[in-house]
């Protein structure tokens, strides 16, 4: 990915740039809002990491100007301001994510991967469907029988994985790798509990509809249309 880092703290910007390059990305740094705006308007970046407290114009101003100039690049805000009101304001202003300082560099990379996944999802015909269930990865909307479901990020990722493998058994190991991005035993029943939560929203909330999510004991989990045989 080509990433623009707008950060006035030179040492932090340098570490972030170095880490991004190390992770296989291309990164540019702007140390103020005006330079950032100029670079963003003239270079096709995949994502912009934007600090909120910048000299001159704030990150909010830069974000507003970007959108006014018609630059649609996804923006991830980075800030030492951790109050919920700042997060809400940032997301409402059009940012796709908000990362609070200090952050683990792994977390930054994970969030960038999430932005990339979202960007790579084709805008047309991207809605995943199974029976009366529909998941729109672009707009992050899920409906069952035309009723919207409110899922957490983990539940959304779980459902997306199961939907993309509809009719096939998905093992716990695969879920751990794809959703939690770990390739080892997590030492917890976290997957079972999240799937139970998903089942509550997906199936138990619709007692009149046939269940879609099945547990295949000893193997994994399966999402399939009622009556369809597993692949």
């Amino acid at each position: 990915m080509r990433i623009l880092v707008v950060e006035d703290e030179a040492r932090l910007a340098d570490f972030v740039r170095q880490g991004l390059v190390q992770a296989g990305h291309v990164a540019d740094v702007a140390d103020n809002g005006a330079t950032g705006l100029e670079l963003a308007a003239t270079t096709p970046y995949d994502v912009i990491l934007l600090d909120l407290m910048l000299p001159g114009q704030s990150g909010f101003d830069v974000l507003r100007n970007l959108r006014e100039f018609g630059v649609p690049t996804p923006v991830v805000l980075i800030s030492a301001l951790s109050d919920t009101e700042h997060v809400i304001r940032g997301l409402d202003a059009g940012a796709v994510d908000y990362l609070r300082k200090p952050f683990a560099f792994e977390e930054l990379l994970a969030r960038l991967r999430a932005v990339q996944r979202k960007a790579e999802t084709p805008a047309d015909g991207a809605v995943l469907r199974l029976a009366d269930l529909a998941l729109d990865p672009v707009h992050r909307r899920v409906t069952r029988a035309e009723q919207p479901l409110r899922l957490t990020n983990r539940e959304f990722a779980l459902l997306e994985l199961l939907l993309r493998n509809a009719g096939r058994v998905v093992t716990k190991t695969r879920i751990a790798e794809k959703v939690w991005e770990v390739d080892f035993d997590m030492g917890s029943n976290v997957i079972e509990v999240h799937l139970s939560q998903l089942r509550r929203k997906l199936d138990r909330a619709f007692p009149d509809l046939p269940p879609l999510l099945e547990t295949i004991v000893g193997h994994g989990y399966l999402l399939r249309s009622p009556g369809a045989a597993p692949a």
Partner: protein
Amino acid sequence: MSIRNMLHSLRGQLALVFGAVFGLVTLLAGGYQYRQVGQVLHQGDDQRLRARAIALLDRVALDPLPTLPLPSAGERLRVVMEAPGQAARELFHSPGYEGVGTPAAPAPGWRVAEVRTELLDANGQSNQVHLWLAHSAAPLAADLGRVRQGLVLALVGSLGLAAVLAWALGGRALRPLRHISQQARRVGAAPGEERLTVPATGDEVQELAQTLNQMLDRLAAGAKLQDNFLAAAAHELRTPLAVVQAGLGVVQHAPDLPAHLLPVLATQLEEMQRLGRLVDDFLLVSRLRADTLPLARRPVALDELALAAADRLLPRFRTAGRPLELAVEEQATDFLVLGDADKLTTVLLNLLENALRHAPPSSAVQLRVGREATTNWPYAEVTNPLRQSLGDLGRLTAAHYQADIFSEGTGLGLWLSNRIAEMHGAPLALREANLAFSARLRLPPN
């Protein structure tokens, strides 16, 4: 309100002062009136006694023989005749007359009058006749007693009436003060936009309300200043932490990093993360102590918050070799509460970190989300086994108390979590049984 408090209250003291002044004035006026009435009664009694004595004297005759009237019942009479050149001769005295005293010095219980006249005897000689008449002073004393009783009753009645009136008037006069007091009680240590209503009375009450509002302005300005300072401090502290943490994260993934440095870097990263959480905790504590921590309440799903918190700490549980077992009660349809998601997450992270610190190696920590059977309140409960009993659990929520001085931590976590829980409606419910400690965050349902 007890009698003691009532007497010490401003209203009670007003009633007391008003009653005392009114009572004193009534007492002085009553005393003066009593003296005047006493004098009138004495004069009337004197006149009646003297008139009776004159009437009796008129009936005294010496010619041809001394003739004397007899006193009525209750009267005592003495008649003495003095002829020129002869010693005075007592013509009559009632039995017991000796005890009545003289007009100038009557004996107690008696009143005496003296009258005299000149009468001619059978020889045509003029004689001086003296007549002393005494009667009991009891009727006069009884009259005076009744007057006194009336005055005392009037005094007591006046005092009572004065106190009641003063109490009522005091209450009426102090009503704006009570209103101000009620309003002021609702204002927290860090007032926002709320101000006291200023009554347009043009008196001290109006002045007091204005003064209090000026004080609230100053407090609000101070709170805002402190809030700004804390925000700036947060920024100043988090930025260098972010620099170091990002630097360590980058170095950790450098391809040419010698393998023996990896564990060192991992430890440093973990410490940096702990430092970051500490900064958050200290800032939170400062705002809690200053009562300037705002709660952004909105409907949040407690089960989702708990699972997200568990997700964040899973790597640390795994590294520490302590399994984290999660359970969400399946019967409940939802766990919606009205709360500040960030602050509740802080509480859940603190409870989980606390359990991680205190659970013996290899023992499992449990996070359970459910609804209480009796209250139907959603709860999140973290349970961990203990190496040894914690003793008095009440101390755990005291600031800077550490159950295990050899474990990590500042001793702020449970205090801070408890304060946030209290702000949401109920303190943490702490329990220890069979060497297992559990801390429950209970929240009223949305």
